[in-house]
């Protein structure tokens, strides 16, 4: 297992390298740069600009600049944001917490809803309940996440049930940790529900199809013929097999944690990575953009790895090979 993880992580290195190279030169292609804007700003002295240029290696050609950046990355120094004059990591950290909280919340909720619904639909194949579930799954797949978010913002603003935007209400520190936590959750609910509604449809369909596929397989007939109770047949035999492809999917979903929520974040005014990277790209904040892309790519690789490991844990037929 350890060897497997190590070799997979090693394989990820060239991938990350290629990714960083591509993203660096994409940003280089952009017309103008943040520095030329800074130089035009009369409030900033030429000495400051020269000092910045030296420290980032910006007076050197782009290829050298890339290696400057790479050297820093290897020491976990993601560089400094040009626009905010603070370390990139400092900026990303606070937004990352919000985005990860939002994505994990909706991921958890989506799976909690979708798996039982998928099973229910498969068991009642052909009835009106199944058609209703399938119909809602279809609608969920086809509704754009940002549009769901807009509709929810509309209803929240009309009915004032849920707060819109931000992560906290205006409270002093005196209300205590748990009250703050509850407040945060209340703010999380709207973007979280929007993401859940946008994501549960495809999961329901997949779960239903997997379940149906195994429901008619020979080993299920055997299990029934042995006289096993229906519960055991369904949840020990069918579900154990049907869940495997979903585990792989779970890994992929983990990897989409960063960018999946971006538009919903912008629409619901949730202060996460989506807004940050949008502004960074607009301002050509080189290191901020690259760090975000890199973290996104790293998450994808980790997500795939987690999926492989989970699958091996759940399905004993699979041996991890390096």
């Amino acid at each position, binding site marked *: 297992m350890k060897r497997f993880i190590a070799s997979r992580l090693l394989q990820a290195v060239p991938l990350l390298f290629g990714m960083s190279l591509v993203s660096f030169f994409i940003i280089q292609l952009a017309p103008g740069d943040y520095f030329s804007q800074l130089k035009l700003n009369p409030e900033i002295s030429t000495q400051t600009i020269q000092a910045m240029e030296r420290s980032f290696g910006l007076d050197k050609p782009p290829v050298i600049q890339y290696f400057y950046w790479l050297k820093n990355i290897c020491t976990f120094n993601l560089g400094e944001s040009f626009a905010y004059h603070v370390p990139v990591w400092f900026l990303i950290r606070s937004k990352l917490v919000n985005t990860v909280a939002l994505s994990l919340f909706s991921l958890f909720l989506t799976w909690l809803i979708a798996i039982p619904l998928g099973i229910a639909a498969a068991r009642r194949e052909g009835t009106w309940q199944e058609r209703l579930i399938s119909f809602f799954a*279809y609608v969920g797949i086809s509704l754009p996440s940002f549009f769901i978010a807009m509709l929810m913002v509309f209803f929240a603003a009309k009915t004032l049930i849920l707060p819109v935007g931000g992560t906290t209400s205006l409270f002093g520190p005196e209300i205590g940790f748990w009250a703050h936590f509850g407040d945060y959750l209340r703010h999380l609910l709207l973007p979280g529900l929007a993401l859940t509604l946008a994501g549960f449809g495809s999961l329901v369909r997949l779960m239903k199809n997997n379940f149906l596929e195994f429901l008619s397989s020979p080993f299920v007939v055997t299990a029934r013929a042995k006289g096993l109770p229906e519960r055991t047949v369904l949840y020990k035999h069918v579900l154990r097999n049907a869940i495997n492809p979903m585990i792989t999917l779970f890994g992929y979903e983990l990897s989409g944690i*960063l960018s999946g929520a971006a*538009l919903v974040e912008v629409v619901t005014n949730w202060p996460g990575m989506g807004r940050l990277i949008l502004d960074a*790209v607009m301002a050509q904040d080189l290191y901020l953009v690259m760090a975000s892309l890199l973290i996104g790519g790293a998450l*994808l690789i980790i997500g795939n790895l987690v999926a492989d490991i989970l699958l091996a844990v759940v399905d004993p037929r699979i041996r991890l090979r390096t």
Partner: protein
Amino acid sequence: MRHFLRRLRRTHRPAFAALWILVALYGAAFLADCIAPYPYDLQNRAYSLCPPTPVRFRETGGGLHLRPFVYRVELENPALNTYRTDRTTIHPVRLFVTGPTRKLLGIIPSQRYLFGTDDTAPIFLFGTDMNGRDIFSRIIYGSRISLSIGILGVSISFLLGLLIGGISGYFGGRTDTILMRTVEIVMTFPAFYLLLALRATFPTNLSSVQIYLLITVILSFIGWASLARIIRGMVLSLKEEEYVLAARSLGLSRLRIIIRHILPNTLSYTVTALTLSVPGYILGESGLSLIGLGIQEPFPSWGNMLAVTIGNLRILTTAPWMLLPGFFIFLTIISFNFLGDGLRDVMDPSGKTG
């Protein structure tokens, strides 16, 4: 083709209905100059955020009319954005009215419109936006961009994906390794971030046509990778078939074998995948336009029409009809999804999906 349609209707009714919805939507986009009662950039300052005009058959006094009519509305309170209905006179809605000349598809001058009222009582089927522009007209005009970008973008990335996937699968070896590593790198990027980064490499002040083409190219650039990988897998198994061996022993060139013999056999899969991937492009365009990086005002697209509602709760609550473009995005996407599923069932009856 007719046989195919009949089979689709028999086996998959929703897909058949979806096909007609799409035909209607694309037809409306094509004939936008005739269907939209007003130009997309015509501003009526007196009708800012005017609610949808109800089309009536029954007069307030009780008189019933066969011809639908509208009442004239007037801005009553600009602060609260309320409108007063003037019920004294009725203004009939007429079909095929004449109006100011517009160029049909930019070429044929035409004065006929599908429907309209007299100028004193304008008809806003879906209400107006802040500048008093008719939302119905803008949705019809905007569909040109939102709908065509799906088809165009899919075509480009399918050509790229087919070619690269085909080459990679057929030649194998080092070519395969290099191409597939490239594919993996493109796929590792979070799609939305890559979209943003690529968009940022171009200046923001491009002309609308340039932006349109740019978005299409960027979306295709992101979309080809996954397709190339799937095609490669199919080619890998197809190239061992005997007809490929026959073609090779006949001395055909390798490119010819790929294009004429192998790729057509991936067709049934590709047509389905093509249909099912159109929504991604439509979503990409509307997402970019939504955050202000796509199609720019005054040109409408379904995405940028929704943009004003972001972070503006007052507009959102007083004028919820501003959200209507979103329903059209939804309608288009669900139609493509239904159609794609139907096509898959018809083309490959073995792989049953629910």
